[in-house]
């Protein structure tokens, strides 16, 4: 639903399943036109076989000037519009104003800019003469939260085995508690993912009947594989068996990276969301994951008590990765936004309704890097934990803003 550039997929409340128009296949099978064609007083809709040059629909297309909605999305749409106005096809045209139930009693003191972003909490602008139903934003806080818990889970067991493999001795307790924490956050991740499904039982379909081209299915398998590694890693740490740990460390790292980064590709596959098409997204997710792992460890350090060596390495990793991820996230500013949709979304993110969580998130992430550096320079260990908290809070805020702003563009 979030991926569809046309906002054409919806949840049928009778069976909680995603549905879309199928051109009334049950009627076509019965020799009848789709209902929209049969009913239309002005016969504005023609249906037929595009491959048959003699069909009315093929002839109409050869005569008129057919256009499609959002051709740049490569969805090869089979719904054509003849001599349609750009305004009716592109929902972000400035001439189109929305007036939805959400705008009815809003704060009248808001500036016009704020108001424009506010009215776009719906992902659908009304057509010129209608005041329209707001389409519900499909991905809410649960998706932001899932992304955040997953970053922590993956980050923990990306940083720890890496440290282990490069030979930084931080003690088995770190590995054990790190794995436990990772498992906890991974569990949260799974719970959020499943609860976000309108039809939670459908989760098994993803595993049992995977659609391998989908990052959703790939991600489910990556998380499952990673979860096994987390279990084994924790077990090895519990047994304090360095040999097993060394063996498990490699697949853990190998699975932790795509577990963290696949979300970037999942967002990227959402062709309807131009903001999420940034090529820097995988790099951003990698840096954020490392930083989230380090930040979690820095906080965990307060609980575990830190050996000098581990504290400094972890804080250094945090300082660098938090700095890099803030830079990458902040680069949204400098990125070109080539399409109207991406400009619309970037506007909501940087100046509009989501500016506050976005900027607060970036500032706190940066504060994470600064405090971590200060901690290193001053040797004050508690500062590292503060840095970790700042970064994790900032990460959530920014992730949420990014996901919501991406969906704020009216698609239909």
């Amino acid at each position, binding site marked *: 639903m979030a991926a569809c550039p046309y906002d054409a997929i919806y949840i049928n409340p009778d069976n909680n399943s995603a549905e879309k128009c199928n051109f*009334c296949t049950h009627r076509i099978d019965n*020799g009848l036109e789709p209902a929209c*064609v049969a009913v*239309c007083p002005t016969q504005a809709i023609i249906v*037929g076989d595009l491959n048959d040059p003699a*069909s009315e629909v093929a002839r109409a297309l050869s005569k008129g000037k057919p256009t499609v909605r959002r051709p740049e999305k490569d969805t090869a749409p089979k719904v054509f519009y003849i001599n349609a106005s750009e305004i009716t096809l592109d929902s972000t045209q400035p001439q189109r104003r929305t*007036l939805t139930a959400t705008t*009815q009693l809003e704060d009248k003191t808001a500036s016009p800019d704020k108001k424009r972003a506010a009215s776009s909490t719906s992902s659908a602008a009304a057509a010129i*003469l209608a*005041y329209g139903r707001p389409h519900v934003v499909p991905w809410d806080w649960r998706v932001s939260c899932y992304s955040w818990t997953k970053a922590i889970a993956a980050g923990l067991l990306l940083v720890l085995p890496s440290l282990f493999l490069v030979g930084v001795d931080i003690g088995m307790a770190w590995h054990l508690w790190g794995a436990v924490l990772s498992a906890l956050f991974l569990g949260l991740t799974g719970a959020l993912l499943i609860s976000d499904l309108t039809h939670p039982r459908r989760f098994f379909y993803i595993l049992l009947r995977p659609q391998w081209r989908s990052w959703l299915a790939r991600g489910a398998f990556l998380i499952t594989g990673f979860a096994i590694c987390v279990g084994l890693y924790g077990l090895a740490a519990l047994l304090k068996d360095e040999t097993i740990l060394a063996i498990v460390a490699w697949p853990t790292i190998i699975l932790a990276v795509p577990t963290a980064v696949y979300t970037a590709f999942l967002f990227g596959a959402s062709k309807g969301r131009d903001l999420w098409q940034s090529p820097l997204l995988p790099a951003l997710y990698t840096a954020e994951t490392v930083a989230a792992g380090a930040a979690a460890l820095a906080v965990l350090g307060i609980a575990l008590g830190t050996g000098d060596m581990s504290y400094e390495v972890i804080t250094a990793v945090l300082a660098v990765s938090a700095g890099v991820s803030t830079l990458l996230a902040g680069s949204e500013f400098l990125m070109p936004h080539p399409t109207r949709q991406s400009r619309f979304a970037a506007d909501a993110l940087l100046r509009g309704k989501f500016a506050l969580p976005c900027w607060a998130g970036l500032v706190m992430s940066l504060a994470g890097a600064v405090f971590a550096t200060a901690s290193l320079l001053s040797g004050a260990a508690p500062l590292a934990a503060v840095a970790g908290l700042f970064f994790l809070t900032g990460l959530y805020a920014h992730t949420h803003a990014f996901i919501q702003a991406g969906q704020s563009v009216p698609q239909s």
Partner: protein
Amino acid sequence: MKTSKRNEEQNEGFGHLESSPPFEDWTDFVDYDPASWPRRVERHFSLVPTVCFNCEAGCGLLAYINKDTLEIERTEGNPLHMASRGRNCAKGPATAAQIKNPDRILYPLRRSGPRGSGKWERVSWDQVLDDLAGRIRQCITEGRFDDVVYHVGRPGEDLFTERVLTTWGVDGHNSHTNVCSASARTGYAMWMGIDRPNPDHANGRFMLMLSAHFESGHYMNPHAQRMTEAKESGAKLCVIDTRLSNTAAKADYWLSPWPGTEAGLLLAIAGYLIQNDLYDREFLRRWTNWQELMTNRQYLEFLKEQEIATEVPQSADFDSFISLLKSIYGQYTPEWAEKETGTSATDIVTIAEEVARAGHAFSSHVWRSAAAGHLGGWMVARNLFFLNVLTGSVGTRGGTLPNSYTKFVPEPPHGLGTTRTWNETHFPLAYPLAHFEMSFLLPYLLEKRGRPLEVYFTRVHNPIWTNPDGFAWIDMLRDESKVKLHLALTPVWSETAQYADYVLPMGEGPERHDVHSYETHASQWIGFRQPVLRAYRERLGEQIDLTYQTNPGEVWEENEFWIELSWRIDPTGELGIRRFYESPYRPGEKITIHEYYRYLFEHTPGLSEAAAAEDEDVLTYMQRRGAYEITTDVYEEHERAPSDAALRNAEIDSETGFLWSPAPPARSNFRPFPGPFQDNEGRTRVGVLVDGAPKTGFPTPSGKLEIFSSTLHDWSWPELALPIYPRTDAQFTLMSAIVSQVHHSRIDKERSEYALLPTFRLPSLIHTRTNGAKWLYEMAQQNPVWINPEDAARIGVDSGDLVRVESDMGHFVDKVWTTEAIRPGVVACSHHLGRWRLFEDHGSDLWNSSLVEIEEQDGFRRMRLVHGPGPFPSNDADSSRIWWSDGGVHQNLIFPVQADPVSGQHCWHQKVRVTKAEVGDRYADVVVDRNKGQLAYDNWLALTRPAPGPGGMRRPYWLLRPLKPPRDLYSLAQH
């Protein structure tokens, strides 16, 4: 072979899909369950035709009755219906939702507390009928023939109920006409007698409309189909509308004159045609009453004096008439019009050229729009039809036909009764030319009447919500000294039903019988609405006596209700009423509904033969098909010679050219028709001579199209007897009765005054008739005030901000929607939406009404929103999924009554002040001062020129009038 199998073969590559299942499959149509797809789960349906009851267009529907559950699962188009041809607007399929609406009223209810207290108890139909029959019988026996009133919103049928009232003898028909089409009717009637146009768009070369018929209005669906066809074959469309409607957006030309200047704009087009000799000279000579004008020297001098004509020809021949036309209409130049109307002179010339090019294939249409909006709106219709007269496109192929050419109303059994009084509350002396009852003034007129109505039916009518000054209606309906018994005949709750004594549930479209014939295109046809479950179960062999046995709960159909009620009023026949309700086939016994319609169909030309050809009886034929086309030979009825029967005894009056018959043939078509025209000897006019040949002519005093209306002239409006529009200051004073209340000279921008257009429709709704159609409310919920960005900036508001819209008697608070689609200086607000109820669980449409509370103190009234629409518990899961919380604002409450002194139309457009909402204002607030409403009523009443007219008459006898009383009741002298 099953449809599915055959179509599968046909549809190799799905190239040959059908729009509807073929007729031969209707008794057992097999479809695939959409929810089970891709599995092909077959379901069996019986398809039974009926007619949509949502708007007046009466489009054909096919009810899909699931044979297993006996439920009406959906309502789709009836391909055999000649007007709608299997296609429907959103409101047609929504009928299925209305039938299953969990908010329906299923049993008769009687109030068990004070009026409007929301307390009800269930009663039996027997109790209702007996109570009612007793009261009506008493009125009749005591000669109080104006104490029983049936007030109808949506008739949806021809003649049945009007006939009932005539059989009782009461002058008790009230309608919604004067909040709707009174002005358009008057404008058309003053030309051709007949008060409705039927534009033959399908064959038109140029279509000019002051309406939005691609999207709304009746007959939107049939018209839109034909407009599309015409456009496909090269015809062009011009829309005159202040608002950029969807229709205007699809037009070749959109003219947006200042509201109130439309009549002037049209005269400029007429002036161009006349000045450039682009008219049909022969048609004007043969078919207008130019001689009557040219021989009235006194009137011609009047025209000169008032500078209406620059000069007046001395001779009275046709050439002089043409030069008189030039002298009058030559002054309405495109340049003048540009200044007056704000439309470019070039555009006006372009349109005029298009009109001239189209010639006889020029179709035009106005029904409400500007005509219903303005003081003098009837002149908009008159000046529009002037263009048809000039181009000779009256009744022609591709032109505009008088509606009666295409209307057929079959003769009812035992004919009609006789109206036995003149109801002064419906037809007051102040409005002798009104078309028709001064319905929306009822609260004021009852005040004057001084005695109560004994029985007041509202039928599919919601005056509290629909009419202006709704609080006056609330006060009237609460007052038992005004209305002793109020019965709401309605399928659902409405604002008005809340204040009723009895709420009597009546069937939706597929639950009742009706026959009707409408001016959808160049064809004379009848449609048959029927209770589809009854028709289906009877086909299965069940014996069903009354329709309510197959309807939900105890929902009756009106027609059986009227038969039963009439029978109980006069069980013995002593009042002479019962005989009208006896079977024409079983003497002395009560007629059944099937017998009634069988009789009608037997009296429809050609229908018996068509049925016989299919080996069916007429009733079965109509039950299976739902519509019948009588003829498409409908053009130029006026050119036809009168029938031989009419000519048999006719005598020619050489002076007038009229053909008089002492014994005219009985009519077979009971369509509404002006006249009869009778002379002092009691002879009836059956035709007119045109160039020496007998012709049917037009039902006007002259028998011709009346460029000079002797009726307007003789009934005190000489300055408005020609198609006219004021040009000079003196003329603006002289003709003040056609200067709109929102004319630009009357709007003071500095005071933040605007013209409010409160009448536009949303394509998916129809007044309060779409009650319970959940799918339609999911499409539209709010009615913001449209405002041009320029004006929005001046007021300092943007989309979503609240404004106060203030009329002469109060204000409402609504949000604005800034849009270029409305002209600067003008604001618009759809009259759909803004429904309200007083009680949480009932009172109006639960799907989209808001709960409100009303405060009152003396004349002061304030309505405040408690909460908007929201989920409610019911057996329909969708009612828990209502996501909208805004049901709009009820704007009509703040409109004072503004009765046009000529047509009697409520002039809808309002002069308002639009300002930013003030501190304390809340969304959907409505505040009204009733005393100011009274003041407005008085002011508008002062514009009238009351009867008596010539001969001491209350009203010109020839004009159309529902329940037309005998001639002697027209005379004031006898009283």
